[in-house]
C-alpha cells in the first residue's frame, strides 16, 4: 500500500519529463532519418552527373535532398519564435541574391561565380563553427575533438572565403586584384601562418574559445597570400581546389555540431574538388605544389621565335581555306579560350553546320585546360548550341587526327604545341597536348605569331602541313563562312 503510493508519486513527477526526453530522442531519430534520405539524394544527384542525359535530373535530386534537409532542420528547430523568423528572413534574402546571380551570370563569367559561391559556402561554415564557439563559451566546455573541428572549420572556411574572393576578383579583372601580392619570404610567411593557426587549434582543444577569432583572421590573410600570386592560366586548379575546401569546411562544421548530413555532403564535395584539382594538374603536367608556390617562367629557350618561324610560315586566305574545305571528310575544330574572349562560338557552330550539310563529319577537340575552369569550354560551346556528342575529350580525339583532313585551331596555342612532346628543356615539356600536327592540314586562326601563356614559340605554325590565317577571330570566321558559301 505504502509502496504503491510511492510508485504513483514517482510516476506522477517523472512522466512528463520522461515523455519530453522520449519525444526529443524520437524527434532526433526522425531528423537523422530525414538527413540520411537527403544524403542519399545527394549521392544519386552526383551520380546523375555522369551523363548529360541524366544530369538535369541529377541536379534536381540534389536540390530535393537540400529542400528535405532544410525542412527537417526547420521542423527540429528549438530556438525562439523570433529566431525562427530571423532564419526565414535570412533564407529569403539569400534566395533573392542567389536567384539574381544565377539568372544574370554569363557563361564566360562562370568561373568567378563558382569561386564566389565557394567563398560564400566557406564563410557560412566558418560562422556555424563560430556560433558554436560563442554558445559553448557561455556554458558547457566542449570536448577536445569539437574544439579541434571548430578550429579546422574556421581555418578552412576563412582560407576558402578570402582565397575565393581574390580568385573571383582576379577572374573578373577587377583593378583591385590586378597586381599580385608578392614579397620575399612569402612561402615562409605562409608556413608561419599555417603553424600559428595549428597551434591555436590545439589551444582550442583545451576548451578555449578565444583563439578561434584570431585564427580566422590569420587564415583569412593566408587565403589572400596563397591565391594572389597565382596567374591566369593556373586558375582552373585554384577554383577546383577552393571547391574542395568549401566541401571540407562544411564537413568540419558537421563535426562541430555532430551532424551527419554535413559530414557526408561535405566529404562528397571535398572528394569532387580534389579529383578535379588532380585532373587539372595532370592536364598541365604540373604538381599542385608547383601551381601553388611556383611560377611558370618562360626560360629563354635554345631556339628563338625567329629561327623557328623565318621563311616557313605559310599564310592563307578565306578563299583558299574554302577551297580546301570543299571536299573534306572530317574536320576537327580546336577551340581555345581566345575563341570565348572573341565571343565567336556561335560563328564556329555556323561554319560547322555548313560543313556538315556538305557531308563532312565535324567534331570539336577540347583540351582540359581550354577554359578558365574544368569543363568551361564545353559549357561555352553548349551555349552556342553545339551538340554535346560532338565535343570530344583529348584521349578520344588524339587517335583520330591522322585520319583528319582539316583541323581548325582557333584561339589555342600552348595546348597544340608539339614541343611539349619533344623538347625536354621547354617549360611545358610533358604536358599532354592535342596532336593536331598529325592531321593532313592544320589551319590556325590567330591574330599574330605571339606566344601563349607559356611564352614560347610554337613550331606547329612553321610545319609543312600548317597554314596560318591571320585575323581577329570573329571577323576571320565570318569571312570564312562567306567564302565557303560562295564556293
Amino acid at each position, binding site marked *: 500500500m505504502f509502496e504503491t503510493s510511492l510508485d504513483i508519486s514517482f510516476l506522477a513527477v517523472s512522466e512528463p519529463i520522461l515523455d519530453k526526453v522520449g519525444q526529443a530522442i524520437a524527434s532526433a531519430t526522425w531528423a537523422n532519418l530525414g538527413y540520411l534520405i537527403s544524403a542519399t539524394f545527394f*549521392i544519386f544527384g*552526383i551520380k546523375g*552527373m555522369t*551523363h548529360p*542525359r541524366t544530369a*538535369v535530373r541529377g*541536379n534536381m535530386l*540534389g536540390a530535393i535532398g537540400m529542400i528535405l534537409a*532544410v525542412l527537417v532542420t526547420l521542423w527540429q528547430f528549438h530556438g*525562439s519564435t523570433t529566431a525562427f523568423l*530571423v532564419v526565414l528572413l*535570412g*533564407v529569403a534574402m*539569400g*534566395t533573392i*541574391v*542567389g536567384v539574381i546571380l*544565377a539568372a544574370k551570370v554569363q557563361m564566360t563569367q*562562370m568561373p568567378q*561565380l*563558382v569561386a564566389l*559561391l565557394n567563398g*560564400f*559556402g566557406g564563410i*557560412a*561554415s566558418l*560562422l*556555424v563553427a563560430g*556560433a*558554436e564557439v560563442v*554558445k559553448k563559451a557561455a556554458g558547457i566546455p566542449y570536448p577536445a575533438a569539437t574544439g579541434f573541428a571548430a578550429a579546422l572549420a574556421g581555418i578552412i572556411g576563412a582560407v576558402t572565403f578570402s582565397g575565393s574572393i581574390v580568385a573571383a576578383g582576379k577572374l573578373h579583372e577587377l583593378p583591385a586584384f590586378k597586381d599580385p601580392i608578392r614579397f620575399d619570404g612569402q612561402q615562409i610567411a605562409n608556413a608561419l601562418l599555417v603553424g600559428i593557426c595549428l597551434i591555436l587549434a590545439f589551444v582550442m582543444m583545451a576548451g578555449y574559445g578565444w583563439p578561434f577569432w584570431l585564427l580566422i583572421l590569420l587564415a583569412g590573410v593566408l587565403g589572400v597570400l596563397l591565391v594572389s600570386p597565382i596567374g591566369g592560366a593556373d586558375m582552373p586548379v585554384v577554383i577546383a581546389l577552393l*571547391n574542395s575546401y568549401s566541401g571540407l*569546411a562544411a564537413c568540419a562544421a*558537421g563535426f562541430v*555540431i555532430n*551532424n551527419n548530413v*554535413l559530414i*557526408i*555532403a*561535405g*566529404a*562528397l*564535395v571535398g*572528394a*569532387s*574538388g580534389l*579529383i*578535379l584539382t588532380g*585532373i587539372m594538374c595532370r592536364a598541365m603536367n604540373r604538381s599542385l605544389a608547383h601551381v601553388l608556390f611556383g611560377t611558370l617562367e618562360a626560360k629563354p629557350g635554345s631556339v628563338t621565335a625567329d629561327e623557328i618561324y623565318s621563311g616557313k610560315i605559310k599564310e592563307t586566305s578565306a578563299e583558299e581555306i574554302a577551297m580546301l574545305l570543299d571536299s573534306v571528310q572530317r574536320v576537327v575544330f580546336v577551340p581555345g579560350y581566345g575563341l570565348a574572349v572573341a565571343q565567336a562560338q556561335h560563328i564556329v557552330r555556323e561554319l560547322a553546320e555548313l560543313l556538315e550539310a556538305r557531308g563532312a563529319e565535324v567534331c570539336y577537340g577540347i583540351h582540359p585546360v581550354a*577554359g578558365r575552369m*574544368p*569543363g568551361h569550354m*564545353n*559549357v561555352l560551346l*553548349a551555349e552556342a*548550341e553545339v*551538340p*554535346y*556528342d560532338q565535343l570530344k*575529350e583529348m584521349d578520344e580525339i588524339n587517335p583520330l587526327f591522322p585520319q583528319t583532313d582539316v583541323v581548325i585551331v582557333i584561339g589555342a596555342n600552348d595546348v597544340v604545341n608539339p614541343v611539349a612532346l619533344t623538347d625536354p628543356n621547354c617549360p611545358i615539356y610533358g604536358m599532354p597536348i592535342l596532336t593536331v600536327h598529325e592531321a593532313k592540314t592544320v589551319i590556325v586562326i590567330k591574330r599574330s605569331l605571339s606566344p601563349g601563356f607559356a611564352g614560347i614559340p610554337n613550331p606547329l605554325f612553321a610545319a609543312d602541313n600548317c597554314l596560318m590565317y591571320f585575323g581577329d577571330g570573329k571577323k576571320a570566321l565570318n569571312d570564312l563562312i562567306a567564302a565557303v558559301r560562295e564556293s
Partner: protein
Amino acid sequence: MLITALTIFVLAMFVGFEIITKVPPTLHTPLMSGSNAISGITLVGAILATDGPIAGTLGFIAVVFATINVIGGFLVTHRMLGMFRKKK
C-alpha cells in the same frame, strides 16, 4: 560518437571518389557548380546556430551566405545543363 562521425566521413569520401571519377570532362563545370550547391548544406548548421544575440547574429549571416550558395548553385547548374543538347 567521434569514431562514428569519422567512419561516415571516410566512407563518404570513398563514395565521392568512386562516383566522381566517372563524370565526363564535358560536365565538369556543372559538376563543380552543382556540388558547390551541395556544399551549401552548411545551411542546416546555420539554421540550428541561429539563437541568442551573438550566436544568432552569426547564424543569421551564415544562413544568408549559405542560402545564396545553395540557390545560386542549383539554379545556375540547371541553367547550364539546359544548354547541353544532343544532335538533332
